[in-house]
């Protein structure tokens, strides 16, 4: 039986082989993990569909493979053995071109030439590698795609002059002529993928150990951030919030919560809930720009930016926050964060976000200007909450009180909404955080 690269989510067409847990000759049980595959969006474990013996492994760690590619051959106990032997090799040979070995003598010497190199040699027209540099959301003509592939270009910085900003063939030719093309291409080719000692380092003066190639998540983040800043005119607006009401509930419920659940009840689920409640009054914050119109979403699905121990950023989504109370939101955020850090989020965990929350607060930041998670129109940064002297006004005169205070900072897309709407929304979030009956929520 062939182990095939599965379809991992609707928009995923390829993945990178991260690690093999088995080798040729290993006997495996049904459901035993065979390998990990990294896609654009997650790391996924591929397990054995049946018990058997691994007779062939056709892709190496680091290879980028398309959906449907044969990854390995599993000789299933009970399956006609001769059938497995006679049928599989032909299929494998076409997928795994041994021609690469005969065509390139140096590759034969290293015995384990990296598969992307072989693919490019044997079938440059269908090699998947160059597609990695082409953003799937861009409409590129065949002529442009061919130029990108021929010249190994990264055209993310090319400004299209065609209809609706389309990047035309002329734009790419001008980009190549300008000389700018050669630089990003170097940066976009991570050195470790094709280690070749005979090739001199392009910049011998620099310490090569200080060059950290972007991994998949870093590259995607970089592309998305540039795209977002190019797409949306960002406006930052911030508001100061007093967390006394939230703190009262956290103090009264907190110890029991921690005892029952094993983790603390933080501010984040309260803020998440407050944003969901405020969005019901300001629905245009929960929207996306489509051409010349704004699509306002009925479900409030809040993305929570999760840091992967400084090794990247992912945004899993808490779905339908309108109908969920703080306690449930807290549990879902906790579960998603754990899955994210273990790189076990499924494509569905990322899908459908309508607004995003970025939480720098635990590090005590004062204010953060976040970048919008496209195609959404707003993103909130929840910054550090700290006890501060606050002037409390009363009829008997003003006094100074010590209160927990923090900044909520929102970047919004000025194409979609104006400052007054955003300000009123922020004020609404503040009002909810300061006055809502939080005891009823946990």
């Amino acid at each position: 039986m062939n182990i095939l690269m599965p379809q991992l989510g609707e928009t995923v067409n390829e993945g990178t082989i991260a690690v093999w847990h088995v080798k040729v000759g290993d006997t495996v049980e049904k459901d035993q993990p065979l390998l990990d595959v990294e896609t654009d969006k997650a790391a996924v474990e591929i397990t054995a569909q049946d018990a058997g013996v691994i007779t062939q492994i056709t892709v190496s760690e680091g290879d980028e493979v398309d959906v449907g590619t044969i990854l390995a051959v599993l000789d299933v106990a009970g399956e006609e053995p001769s059938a497995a032997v006679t049928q599989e090799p032909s299929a494998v040979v076409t997928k795994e071109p041994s021609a690469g070995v005969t065509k390139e003598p140096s590759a034969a010497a290293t015995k384990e030439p990296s598969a992307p190199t072989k693919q490019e040699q044997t079938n440059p027209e269908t090699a998947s590698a160059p597609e990695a540099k082409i953003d799937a959301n861009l409409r590129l003509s065949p002529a442009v795609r061919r130029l990108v592939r021929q010249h190994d270009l990264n055209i993310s910085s090319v400004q299209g002059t065609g209809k609706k900003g389309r990047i035309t063939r002329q734009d790419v030719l001008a980009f190549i002529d300008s000389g700018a093309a050669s630089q990003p291409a170097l940066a976009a080719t991570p050195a470790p993928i094709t280690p070749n000692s005979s090739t001199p380092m392009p910049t011998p003066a620099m310490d090569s150990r200080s060059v950290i190639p972007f991994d998949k998540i870093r590259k995607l983040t970089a592309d998305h951030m540039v795209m977002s800043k190019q797409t949306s005119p960002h406006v930052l607006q911030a508001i100061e919030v007093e967390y006394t009401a939230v703190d009262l509930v956290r103090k009264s419920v907190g110890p029991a919560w921690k005892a029952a659940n094993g983790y603390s009840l933080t501010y984040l689920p309260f803020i998440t809930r407050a944003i969901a409640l405020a969005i019901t009054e300001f629905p245009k914050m929960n929207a996306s720009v489509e051409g010349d119109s704004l699509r306002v979403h009925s479900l409030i699905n809040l993305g929570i930016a999760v840091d992967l121990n400084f090794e990247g950023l992912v945004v899993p989504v808490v779905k339908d926050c309108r109908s969920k109370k703080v306690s449930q939101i807290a549990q879902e955020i906790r579960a998603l964060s754990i899955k994210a850090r273990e790189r076990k989020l499924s494509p569905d965990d990322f899908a459908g976000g309508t607004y995003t929350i970025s939480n720098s607060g635990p590090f005590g930041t004062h204010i953060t200007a976040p970048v919008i998670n496209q195609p959404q129109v707003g993103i909130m940064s929840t910054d550090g909450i700290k006890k501060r002297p606050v002037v409390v006004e009363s009829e008997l005169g003003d006094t100074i009180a010590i209160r927990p205070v923090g900044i909520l900072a929102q970047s919004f897309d000025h194409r979609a909404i104006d400052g007054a709407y955003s300000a009123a929304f922020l004020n609404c979030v503040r009002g909810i955080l300061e006055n809502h009956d939080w005891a009823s929520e946990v």
Partner: protein
Amino acid sequence: MAKLSYREAVAAAMAQEMRRDDRVIFLGEDVAKAGGVFKATVGLYDEFGPLRVRDTPISEQAILGAAMGAAMTGLRPIAEIMFSDFFAVCWDTVVNEIAKARYMTNGQVETPLVIRSGNGGGARFGAQHSQSIENWAMAVPGLKVVAPSNAADVKGLLAASIRDPDPVLFFEQKSMYGTKCEVPDGEYVIPLGVANVAVEGTDVTIVALAAMVPKAIKAAEILKAEHGLSCEVIDLRCLVPLDTQSIIKSVIKTGRLVTVEENPRLCGWGAEIASIAAEELFWNLDAPITRITTPHIPLASVDVLEDLMIPSVDRIVKTVSEMD
């Protein structure tokens, strides 16, 4: 060089070939003393007499049957089908006999004949006298298909058609009979299957035929002046043999292809060009291939409607300027 009209060029080419080769004869309805209903053959009867220039009864089947027999027995007949729409009544002779004789007799029988015909719209003749049927002819193996766009090409291409050893359908665009241009004096022959780059350009390739060529040239001028677009206009001149190399060379340069044709949209010749480009030029295309055609309905005789249906300069300018 003399300035000749499209119709005068028809007579000039025929006279040139009839003087050169006495096997060349001419037959059709009202073509002799009357000089043809479009006056395209005036003077031939006077010069070559009733034996070589003959009027026939009003029977297209009879005209083509006689022409085929003459060709099979050693003459080089030119037959006129007054309106190309009437090919519909003589299709059996053309498709099953004339086009296939060489192949089915293993070359023992040849049918070196030319069928000239008034083709295309723009003259308010209505649905049964205005069709552009060059795509019908193009679909039949064994026929050559020629459709000139100016008087000089009429002379050169008609001469080449008469000399050709295979049956040629020669489509004269009847709204163009009055158009004039400089035509070379003396013996003038243009080989079949060589397209003419009427306008050179770098941004868009516009492929046109017959009456669509002057419109494409005019549109190219406007597109250059008003939209800064440099259009290359290719006059195909022949559909069979088809000069694919000229199209390919041009599209490799421009990355964009537009076809302009009088054919109704479904299976018009532009579809064949688009299909060739999609197969041969996919990685050179910087925009979707665009076809400008008449709609897939019988052509109207009312002037405003006919003008609306046949591709116009304005439509070409608008379509090309709005391309991706």
